[in-house]
Every structure is written in structure tokens, then in C-alpha cells.
């Protein structure tokens, strides 16, 4: 009792052994796939979350100004497409992180198990609600509170789910904390989850702003037939403003994320990458500011440049994220490799020992009945004991039934029937025992005393 208490209190670092199979690809290539595919996935997640937040805001505003209700409807149609892309694009990074960080990712999953699993029903419900919201626009036209509530519930779910992912992705980095965690909520309160959460939410708004700018400006988009009073310029400006404000806020949250990161994965390589990424966003923000200050003709001028610069920023941030992860886990992964090798060595040493032990058993000069006793131990003791009933009858009873009837006993063992009401039917041993073994077994059973 005391020792187990002692074990529980010290925060030891577990070193499990890894799966003894090689990686299917060189590690650098897997990391590259992980970073790239994750960024594509998170882009659509951002658009889904940002889009639904924007739709909700716009639809509430639409209660007073019908034009905003139309805007809400237009953004709502993009959510259901972006959400499908978010899901399929999530599979590749999931695959990569599973291969690269098997021990870490799965351990974090198990420790937050129920909530991790809850991602599935929660997301499903949120998705169904977004469809319900989209397809009941006309039906619930005169019952806006109900219609808006449908979306509001979906938004609440969308806002909660990132916590689950961030908690997992954070927990996997700290094996030394695993023994201290009891369920999801205790893992959520580990440092860094909350700052990262807000970093994600404002990234969503920022990216959705740029998306709005592009979506409203598309040439084949029948803007004028959809919106009676809004102009393209107005909505593009709104998009830019959202992105700009969200990006400025990111400059406040970003340092907070960096400061709350546990020091174990910090390094100059990380700081450098993050600062370069942030620096690249500054000219983009300047161009958006100029765009907002300008007029209808100049608002599109630098859009492509803004897009390119922001993409580069995102790539740097995504890389920084991976650098922190590999810094944080570098030493522990080395220990896991040692442990895995150590176990392989133990196994190598154990094989000859076990062979020796087996050889000793079989080469000893045993009588036929003694050999039969070994066969019995191997195959029958599960259900039969020499002198008392277990699952089936005791051996002494068999001996009395089949006295002098070796063949009958053997054929029963091979293909048993069902005689007794108080015992389940015995499985047949035709495929498990050869004739030699059957002879030994019968000898043992019939000569038992």
C-alpha cells in the first residue's frame, strides 16, 4: 500500500517500448506530410468554425436588417462544404501522427478517452445541425429564434471541440505528466491549452475574413441578384477588416502562447521560425490596412500578395509547431528506442532458456502414463480434475466408464457427444491430438488411481 502510494505521488516518466516495426517512410518525409496535410486540414477547420461564427453573428444582425440575413445564408452554404473537406483532410495528418508518434498520441488519447471519443458524436450532431439550419431557412422564416438556435447549438459544439484536440496534442508532449492526469478535464488544465485555443479561434476568424473577401469577389458569383443593397466592395472591406483585427489580436495572443509553453521544447530554432513567420504577416497587414483605407478600385490591388504572405506565415507557424514537438520529445524518444532494444535482447536471451526447459521435460524417461499425464495437463485440465467434478466429470469417473474400452474413450475425445445435463458440451480434439498422444492420454486416464 505504502509503496503504491509512493509510486503514485512521484511524477515519474514512463518509458514504454515501441512497436517493433520500422517506419514505412523516412522520418523527414513523414514529418513533411504531417505538417503539410495538417495545415490543409486546419485551413478547412478554420473556415468551418469561422464561417459558422460569422453566420451566427450575421443572422442575429439580420433580425433588424434583412440584408444581413441574406449574407448569413450565403456564408452558411459554404460551411457544409468546408466541413466535409475538414473531415477528409483530417485523415492524412491523423495517419502521419499515428505512425510518427504512436506511443505518445495513443497514450494521450487513452488518458482522455471518453472525451476523445466524444469528438465523434459531437461533430456528427454539429454537422447534422448545420444541414438542418441550411435546409430550414425558408421553413423557419417566421420563427427566427428557433432557426438561429439551431445554429447556435452547432456553434457551441464547434467552439468546444478544439479543446479536446488541443488537450490531446498538448498532453502527448509530456509523458512526465501522464501519471498525474485523471481524465480529460485534468489534462485540459495543463499549461498552454487555453492560450493555444484562443490562438486557434482568432486564426479561424482571420482566415474566414480573407475567404469572405475572395468568395464575394468571384467573377461568376451572381452577387447583384442575391444582395439588393450590399455592394461587393462593402463585403470585401468587411472581410479585410475582420482579418486585420483578428491578426492584430494574434500578435497579442501569440507571445502568450510562446511564454506559456513549458521550457522543455523551447529552443532558438523555434523562436527564430516563429519570429520570421510573424514578421512576414506584418507587410500583409499593412496592405490590408491600405486596402480598407482606399476605395472600390484599389481594394483588390494587393489581395494576391496578402494571400501569399499570409500563407507563408501559416507555413512558418505550422513548422514551428512541429519543431516544438520534436524538441520536446527528442530525449524521450531516445529512451524509448533504448527500451525497445533492451526488450528485444531480453527476448533473445529467453528463447534458448525456454527451449532448454521444454527439452528437459520431453527427453526425460517417462512412462506411457506419465507422457499421457502431460498431454492431459496441456489439453484437459481446463475442465477436468482427477478426483472432483470441475466443468466436466472427474478422471476417476471416466476410468470406471471406459474400463477396458480404450477405443471408445478415444473416439469420445475426438468427437464428444452431449450426455450430461449439468455440463456444457465438450469441444472435439480430433485436430489437436495425434494417435500417439491419444494412446498416451488413454493410458493415463484408464490407469489412474
Amino acid at each position, binding site marked *: 500500500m505504502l509503496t503504491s502510494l509512493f509510486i*503514485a505521488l512521484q511524477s515519474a516518466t514512463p518509458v514504454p517500448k515501441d512497436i517493433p*516495426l520500422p517506419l514505412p517512410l523516412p522520418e523527414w518525409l513523414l514529418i513533411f506530410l504531417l505538417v503539410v496535410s495538417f495545415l490543409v486540414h486546419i485551413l478547412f477547420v478554420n473556415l468551418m468554425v469561422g464561417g459558422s461564427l460569422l453566420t451566427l453573428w450575421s443572422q442575429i444582425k439580420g433580425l433588424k436588417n434583412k440584408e444581413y440575413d441574406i449574407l448569413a445564408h450565403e456564408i452558411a452554404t459554404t460551411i457544409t462544404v468546408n466541413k466535409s473537406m475538414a473531415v477528409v483532410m483530417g485523415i492524412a495528418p491523423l495517419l502521419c501522427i*499515428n505512425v510518427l508518434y*504512436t506511443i505518445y498520441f495513443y497514450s494521450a488519447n487513452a*488518458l482522455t*478517452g471518453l472525451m476523445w*471519443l466524444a469528438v465523434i458524436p459531437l461533430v456528427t450532431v454539429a454537422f447534422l445541425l448545420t444541414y438542418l439550419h441550411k435546409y430550414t431557412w425558408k421553413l423557419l422564416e417566421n420563427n427566427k429564434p428557433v432557426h438561429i438556435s439551431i445554429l447556435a447549438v452547432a456553434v457551441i459544439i464547434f467552439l468546444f471541440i478544439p479543446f479536446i484536440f488541443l488537450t490531446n496534442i498538448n498532453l502527448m508532449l509530456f509523458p512526465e505528466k501522464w501519471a498525474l492526469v*485523471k481524465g480529460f478535464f485534468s489534462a485540459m488544465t495543463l499549461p498552454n491549452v487555453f492560450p493555444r485555443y484562443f490562438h486557434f479561434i482568432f486564426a479561424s476568424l482571420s482566415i474566414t475574413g480573407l475567404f469572405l473577401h475572395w468568395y464575394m469577389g468571384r467573377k461568376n458569383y451572381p452577387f447583384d441578384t442575391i444582395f439588393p443593397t450590399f455592394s461587393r466592395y462593402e463585403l470585401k472591406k468587411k472581410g479585410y477588416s475582420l482579418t486585420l483585427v483578428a491578426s492584430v489580436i494574434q500578435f497579442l495572443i501569440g507571445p502568450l502562447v510562446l511564454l506559456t509553453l513549458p521550457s522543455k521544447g523551447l529552443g532558438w530554432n523555434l523562436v527564430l521560425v516563429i519570429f520570421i513567420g510573424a514578421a512576414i504577416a506584418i507587410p500583409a497587414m499593412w496592405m490590408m490596412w491600405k486596402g480598407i483605407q482606399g476605395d472600390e478600385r484599389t481594394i483588390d490591388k494587393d489581395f494576391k500578395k496578402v494571400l501569399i504572405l499570409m500563407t507563408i506565415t501559416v507555413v512558418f507557424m505550422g513548422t514551428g509547431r512541429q519543431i516544438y514537438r520534436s524538441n520536446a520529445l527528442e530525449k524521450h524518444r531516445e529512451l524509448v528506442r533504448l527500451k525497445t532494444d533492451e526488450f528485444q535482447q531480453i*527476448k533473445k536471451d529467453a528463447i534458448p532458456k*525456454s527451449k532448454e526447459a521444454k527439452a528437459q521435460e520431453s527427453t526425460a524417461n517417462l512412462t506411457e502414463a506419465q507422457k499421457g499425464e502431460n498431454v492431459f495437463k496441456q489439453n484437459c485440465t481446463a475442465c477436468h480434475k482427477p478426483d472432483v467434478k470441475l466443468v466436466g466429470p472427474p478422471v476417476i469417473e471416466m476410468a470406471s466408464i471406459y474400463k477396458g474400452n480404450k477405443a471408445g474413450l478415444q473416439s469420445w475425445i475426438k468427437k464428444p457427444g452431449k450426455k450430461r445435463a449439468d455440463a456444457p458440451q465438450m469441444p472435439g480434439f480430433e485436430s489437436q491430438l495425434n494417435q500417439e498422444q491419444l494412446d498416451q492420454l488413454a493410458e493415463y486416464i484408464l490407469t489412474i488411481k
Partner: protein
Amino acid sequence: MDFPMFHLDWLNNRMLIAIIAILHVIINHGLAVGFMPFVTWLEQRGVSRSGKDQITDLEWDKMVYKIMKVAFIITTTIGAMTGVGIWFSVALVSPASIGSLIRVFFWAWFTEWIVFVTEVILIMVYFLTWKNSNSSLKAKIRHINFGWYLSIFSWITMAIIVSILGFMMDPGNWQTHHSLLNGFTNPIYLPQLLFRTPTAMLVAGIFGMFLITLFTKKDTNLRTSAVKYASKWLLLWAPISLIGAFIYYRAMPEAMTANLSTAVGTITFAQYYNTLLYVAFAGAGLTIIIGIIGVYKTKLLKPYMVVIPVVTAIAYLGFFERVREFIRKPYVISQYMYSNLLLKDDYVVYKQDGVLKHATYTTVNEVTEENKVEAGKNVFTIACSRCHTAQGVNSVVYVFDRMYGGTGKPLDIASMAAYMPNMHTGRTFMPEFPGNEKEAEALATYIRYLQQTGDVLEGAQEEGITINPNNTASALINKKK
């Protein structure tokens, strides 16, 4: 052993995976793989039904659009998320097996993912451009072609995943050459595909017929002819599905069939097995009857009558998945990893030293006279908890009590301890007990304790973990000194 053990003590871990997976299979087969060609075919019928001056029969087209809308909403929400759910639940319950499979099948899954992305994009294009495509015949024909592309990609997604499923069940291959192509060339691959393809078509036809009766009014021409088309579809696929089921069963590798026959000898499995045959015939048979009524006595067919084959079709698929799961026992990866996630090769160490010594997470690492219950609990978590619960579905107390006659009498520790090391010889679907004798005794003590106290086993998601002092970072470093 090497992962914190997630555990659901009432539902049973396997049941969790089974529920999610079967729901996914039903949606995937019934509303995607089989449904896309069904809908596209119906859409094409609409064009040929219309007069020369029309693009398509608009009333008909609207009905087909509606049933596609249902499929679209369900596949992109529940369908997609249960697909991810299989990953999530398997990673929780069976991390070592899915981790091993991904390392070997990375490219299969990666290819699968690319095909899947294409499928999702195509389904969005197909559904979301439907209304716009009714503007010209050229656009409509292009739209129908998209439907066929979509059908092909849905089928390929299934064809790839079947390779992975087939591989896990094929004994021996893991050791000899565990590569991607092997999954496709293994003897169970084609039969399984031969079974799944027509069955998907069949289930889709039933779902389709159900939706048709929902979306059309009684005694209209529209319903009569739509039901007739669906019935012909059923009559085409039902016999092929039955033949497929038969070929699949026949082609199961020798070792598997051997397992199956032993398994049939056990009471639980005999029930499953018989039901499977009944369900297969009932499923296909009922759809044939519905199909015949649909073609000759269309008006007699009521929506509630279609519900019956919908339920049997679901059971049909569900049971096949259950049997497929059962026959791979005692392995999760044939001849390589047992259902308890321990490697066959590693058993030599566990039998020599005991499992507790090498477990990363355990509250005790050696059995003593005082800690038997606690030690047994840890052994249970490591060696049994993937398939058995303490008190819930397939509980270890229940299976032992049933084995000893189902009397509910106190279980005998000595008999259970003696049974443990030999259990795999009589019950070939069970993996060999991995630990040493003391651990078997501790486990038996714990099982008896469970029976007497009604205690439950909490998983790592509730209780957290305790690290074995043998397997901490400091222990490892000290050893290396």
C-alpha cells in the same frame, strides 16, 4: 502493456468498436457504394422517360434528387464521422494493433485517403450541381457521368479497405512478406469483394425502395414505376449476393475454418453461426419476395413492408462483420499479435518473468501473498480487458460461471488458476495466458473477488495510470550506467 488501457466496463471495448463499425458499414455499403450507382441509374431513367422536348422527367428527377439528398446528408455526417470513429475507437481499445497495421499498410491507407478525398469532392459536385444541371441536356448528361465516376470511386474505396481486412485474417502472411500488394493477393480478398459488392447493391436497393415509398404518394404513377425499377434492381442483386456470401464462406483459409468449427462447438458461437445462415437466407429471400411483389403487385407494397427487409439487410451485414471478427481469434493480426495485443513472439519473456514485470503501467510489478487481488486486477487489465469486462457485456465472472454450469456458486480459485495456463488448448479462440503461474493464481483470486464484491474495473480514462517503477526513465538510466 505499453499503452494506458482505455476500458469500458459495462459496454465492453469490442462492442464499442463493433457498434461504430457496423453503423459505418451499413451507411458505406447501403448509402454510398451501392446507392450511388442506384441513384445515377434512376437519374438516367428520368432522362429516357422524358419526351423529346424535355431534358428530363421533372417530377421523377425531383424524387430522385430527394432520395439523393437523404443519402448525401447521412453519408457526409454520420457516414464520414463513423469512419473516423473506427479510427478513434480502435486507437483507444487496440492501440498496438492499429499502430502495427498502419506501419505496414501506410500506403494502402494513404491511397485510400486520396481515393476518399476524390469521392467526397465528387459527391459534393454531384449533389450540389444537380439543380443547375437541369438547364440543358448536355449539362444533365455530364451530371449523370459524374454520378458514374462517383460510383466508381466509392467502390474503389471499399476495394482498398477490404484488402486490409483480408490481410488481417490471412494466417502466415504477416511473417513471410508483409507488404501492401500482399493484401490484394491474399486468398480471401476477391471472395470478400465478391460478397460485399452485390450486397452493397442489394442493401442500397432496399434503402432506395424505402425512401421512394416515403417520398411518393400512394397510388400515383410515379410510385408504381419507381417501385418497379427498384424491385428489378433487387431481383438482379439478391441472388448474386447470396452466391457471394457462399463463395466468401468457402474461401476462408483452412486455419480459419478450423477455428470456426471449434468455435461452432462452443455454445455462444453455435448460436451466432446458425443465426448467420438464417439471416443470410432471410435477408436475400425477403428482398426477393419484396422484389417480386414490387414488380407484379406493385400496389400491394406499403412503406412499412419495406422496413422489414431494411432491418434484415442491416442484420445481414452486421452478422457477417461479427463472424469476420470472430474467426480471426485468438489473433488480432494473424499469427503475429494476439487479441490481447501481446505479440506471440514476446510470450516467451512474459511466461518466464510474468507480464507485470514488463508492463509499463501497473500498480504492482510482482505477485505477493498480500497483493493478489491488486495484482490480479493488473493482470486482468493487461491480458483480458480488451475482450472481457469485470461486470458488463461478456464479463469474466459470467464466462467462468457459465463454464462451471451457470450455478452462481462461488468460483473456485484453484480450479480457475489451473485452467488458465491450458485454456487455449480447449478453447482455441482464446489466446494463451501470457503470465506465469503466480499471476494466473492472482487473476483467479481477482475474478473470485469480482464475483463476490461486484467491483468494476475503471479504465485509464477515469483512473489515470500508475507507472511501474521498473519502467521509468530513471530505472532505465540506472541500468545503463
